């Protein structure tokens, strides 16, 4: 009796990375991702004179590229000018480039270089899946390493002093939670930003501290834990659904809509059989979020 050797974890992951990809799901992934880039180009059209002309030219190039990518013959050529513009954006904004612009550029690079039905290298969809999991994982580790999450102080800073959207949304959630649970109300927030070097007193109720610490630790644990659970093949659709839920929470609090598009594009690839329904629906929801 020869016992079948169970593959080593690394071998299994390598095999997963090279697993074939549903062609229809890949088309939807590419369509969704390029659609996102085109949508943001259209939103950026504005101004007068030369800036307006340049914005219109850019959006036209993105539209033409997205349209060309629908053709199996011209798909790589269509993505190439979009990649060129994205690389220019990254270079022009460096070192203040938003981090997900690098991810977008990497995905475009993969779409430009991939040859359907010929490549034996990992499919762009597989790279996107592995990449998005690593991004979540390292983002969670970073939160622990920087020391602002274990005691909830990153969120506390937002709640106490942030006049922006994230602070406002966190305060709204805390107030709602407090009302539902009949807890003492929050003080008038946000507080004026103190001179941190001199120091200031901050009074917070015990329930606020507990809520912020729970939310804070839950965030990094989910970011680290869910990608690890992806190592098991059977649980992947459930974990992907969990990550989509986590992304919805992240989007609600941070408002990072461009990143949300890319994350959703990558995560929906874990549901290839229903790609034709999930991608259009998600696209409409995210567009509504952005416009709303």
């Amino acid at each position: 009796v020869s016992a079948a050797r169970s593959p080593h974890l690394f071998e299994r992951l390598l095999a997963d990375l090279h697993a074939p990809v549903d062609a229809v799901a890949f088309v939807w992934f590419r369509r969704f991702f390029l659609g996102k880039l085109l949508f943001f180009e259209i939103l950026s059209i504005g101004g007068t004179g030369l800036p307006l002309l340049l914005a219109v030219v850019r959006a036209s190039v993105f539209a033409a590229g997205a349209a060309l990518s629908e053709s199996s013959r011209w798909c790589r050529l269509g993505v190439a000018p979009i990649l060129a513009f994205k690389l220019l954006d990254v270079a022009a904004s460096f070192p203040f480039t938003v981090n997900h612009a690098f991810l977008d550029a990497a995905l475009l690079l993969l779409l430009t270089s991939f040859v359907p039905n010929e490549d034996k290298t990992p499919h762009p969809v597989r790279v996107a899946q592995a990449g998005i999991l690593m991004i979540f994982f390292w983002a969670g580790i970073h939160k622990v390493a920087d020391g602002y999450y274990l005691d909830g102080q990153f969120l506390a800073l937002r709640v106490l002093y942030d006049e922006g959207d994230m602070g406002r949304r966190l305060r709204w959630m805390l107030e709602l939670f407090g009302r539902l649970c009949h807890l003492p109300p929050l003080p008038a927030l946000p507080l004026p930003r103190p001179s941190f070097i001199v120091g200031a007193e901050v009074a917070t109720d015990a329930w606020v501290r507990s809520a912020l610490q729970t939310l804070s630790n839950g965030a990094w644990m989910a970011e680290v834990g869910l990608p690890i659970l992806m190592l098991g093949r059977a649980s992947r659709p459930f974990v992907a659904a969990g990550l989509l839920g986590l992304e919805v929470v992240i989007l609600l609090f941070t408002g990072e809509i461009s990143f949300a598009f890319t994350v959703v594009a990558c995560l929906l690839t874990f549901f290839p059989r229903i790609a034709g329904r999930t991608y259009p629906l998600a696209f409409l929801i995210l567009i509504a979020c952005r416009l709303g």
Partner: protein
Amino acid sequence: VTLVRGPRARLPYCILALLFAWPPIHMGLSRHYRFSTWRYAGMGMYAAPDGAERDVYVFLPACARPDVPTFALTPDRKLGFYYLTNGPRLDLLALPELKTDEHRALASLIKTIKSLNRPSDFDRLARWADERFFPGRAPATSIGILLTEPHVDMAAGTAHAEAFGFVREQGRWTKVDPMRGPAALSAMASHVGACP
């Protein structure tokens, strides 16, 4: 699994290798060089406050300009300008709409220092301070720059800053040990000291 060769074939592996290896390197570098975790393609957005939430303090030798021994380049978030925290020339940097080239350049420089914390930008700030505060005179022999990161200790009920400083002496920037609270201000003042 059949691996193919060539630059295009290696691209997916290179991207995955970068996504796997760069974040921990970035984590170490951001901690060592104290640049904002939000910069340089790491995974540190929302892991810590962004550079914009830091404050920058500049220390000049007290004997050179007794009225402006220390000033803070701190944005007033409501009014949108940088101001001096002590000394009689409080309006020197009042820049409600960043109307002059000097104001715009300074605001941009401060933004860069807060996020990236690079000695080359310290040099630019030091040159600006020399020209502003010692016009027609020899540059200050020593200058200090202190950056502060906001913290909240909810259990103790306090907001405070972790501060890390840099002092320029004889053209070289040296790092001062991290400090906490207002003691950092006097420690930096003593590092900068007096003119010879």
